[in-house]
């Protein structure tokens, strides 16, 4: 697995670039108070809608807050949502997928519920869940996780069923190995690579969904500097001061792009069938 990651970095320059950009953004998010030159909530009425210059790198918004500082702090929200959703969705999906793959009656019920959840477009499901639980980072994380879990569960279940038919699992069962040991020793290690790839796509989807939810007003509370919120606030003055929308948009796109190319590189490294060239 570690070898696979290393191979992805060596063979796919894109994956290495993606990983480096992502690491840089993670560092920036952690060190936000050191990097942001101005308090992101500081209102400067005389410096409203300033174009980008030496003092305000990304300009200012309609109440004079520094867009660069807000964007740096926004990385914290996106990183947090991306990491937490990726972790919780992968772990819940792993657990549910193992249950569905091993216990027949659970499989029937669980997979029908997953079908029902997947029939609702994930943004709409997230909107509905945030609407009933109120706008907070916690409810955003829960909502996006619930929308992402069905896909992970399906992936795990499919892999488990495929693995169960393999000779080495049959041999272990015949040798009297108990189910938990088979799971721990034979099934889970074989799931790690596809789950790592899936985690990167869930991360990207979560960052994107959070931005969209905040943009349409169903996201993190408006006073929180998240990229979606900054863009949403800049919307009304877009023609006067497009920089409020454009800079966070650019950073958001670069983050999602980095995660996606990292995921594609990992997928190619783990599964030679998917390589770009035939």
């Amino acid at each position, binding site marked *: 697995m570690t070898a696979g990651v290393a191979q992805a970095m060596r063979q796919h320059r894109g994956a290495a670039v993606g990983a480096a950009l992502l690491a840089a953004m993670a560092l920036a998010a952690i060190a936000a108070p050191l990097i942001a030159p101005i308090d992101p909530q500081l209102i400067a009425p005389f410096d409203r809608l300033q174009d980008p210059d030496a003092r305000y790198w990304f300009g200012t918004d309609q109440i004079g807050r520094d867009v660069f500082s807000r964007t740096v702090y926004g990385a914290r929200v996106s990183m947090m949502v991306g990491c937490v959703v990726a972790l919780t969705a992968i772990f819940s999906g792993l657990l549910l997928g193992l249950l569905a793959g091993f216990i027949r009656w659970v499989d029937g019920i669980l997979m029908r519920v997953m079908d029902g959840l997947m029939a609702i477009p994930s943004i709409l499901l997230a909107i*509905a869940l945030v*609407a009933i639980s109120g706008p907070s980072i916690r409810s955003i994380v829960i909502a996006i996780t619930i929308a992402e879990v069905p896909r992970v569960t399906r992936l795990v279940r499919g892999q488990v069923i495929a693995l169960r038919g393999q000779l080495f699992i049959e041999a272990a069962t015949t040798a009297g190995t108990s189910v938990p040991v088979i799971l721990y020793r034979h099934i889970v290690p074989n799931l790690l690579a596809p789950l790592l790839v899936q985690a990167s796509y869930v991360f990207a989807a979560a960052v994107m969904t959070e931005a969209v939810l905040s943009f349409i007003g169903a996201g993190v509370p408006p006073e929180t500097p998240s990229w979606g919120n900054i*863009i949403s606030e800049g919307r009304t003055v877009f023609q006067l001061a497009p920089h409020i929308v454009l800079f966070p948009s650019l950073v958001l*796109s670069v983050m*999602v792009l980095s995660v996606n190319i990292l995921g594609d590189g990992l997928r190619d490294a783990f599964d030679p069938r998917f390589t770009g*060239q035939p």
Partner: protein
Amino acid sequence: MLEYVLRRIVATIPVLLLVAIIVFSLLYLAPGDPAAVLAGDQASAEEIARIRSSLGLDQSFLQRFLQWGGGVLRGDLGQSVFSGRPVTSLIAQRLEPTIALTVLSLLVALLIAIPLGVLAAWKPGSWLDRGAMGFAVLGFSVPVFVLSYCLILLLAVALPVLPVQGYKPLMDGIGPFLRHMILPAFALGVLNAALIARTTRAAMLEVLRQDYIRTAQAKGLPVMRVLIGHALKNAAIPIVTIIGISFAMLISGVVVTETVFNIPGVGRLTVDAILRRDYPVIQGVILLFSVAYVLLNLLIDLSYGLFDPRIRL
């Protein structure tokens, strides 16, 4: 074939039922007491209780679900908490711009994605292939509002050839309608094209490896006939499948795009309902979009028979 069609249709019913249960539960779990809202600030506890029982709010989950489900089947989605108007008519009023945007973006997506995917698979590893796949990764990564604002800045502000936002109904003439639709449909279509192009390329690569393609080339057929007549037709099933799946992305894109371009469609209705916590409207819209998504995918399943005669048996 009839058996296949019937089996697919029957298999859709439990999914629709589950969607209905999930969507109903959302309103059931929603905070706030509609009876207290309707009764107003001055109402006594008895009055609220009376309104609650007249609305049937004191009944069990199952009773309320059956009542609601019966209404839905008759086209009654309840009333907006904000305006008091029936949700069905609120949605019906806003349907035209949303359908127009969806159809036009899908058209843009297909016009870009299919030729791009086919050409990329024809010359794998070429600059065209690399460009197409680079575009695909980019398309996955750029949120639709970002591309929308870039296009507005370019084609409506810097170079004012198209309107910044707004919507003109088809009734007012095709010219103004299209002028207002170009930017939103293009923004949404281009991003949706990424996934379809990637799948088209993969499906075509698989087909182009087959012996009958070599035979077709060997007997001297023109390249285009081989690519379109022989290869694309046989690669159609994964391509139409991904079009069905991408419809979910298209729907969330519509909600965002209507907000950016100020288009008075169902997406804007949703966003306004979220801001006003108008749960029956949110519920109605989600039910409508989800049912449309499930039915579209059913139609696509049924269309497999057209592409692959073996399925008809």
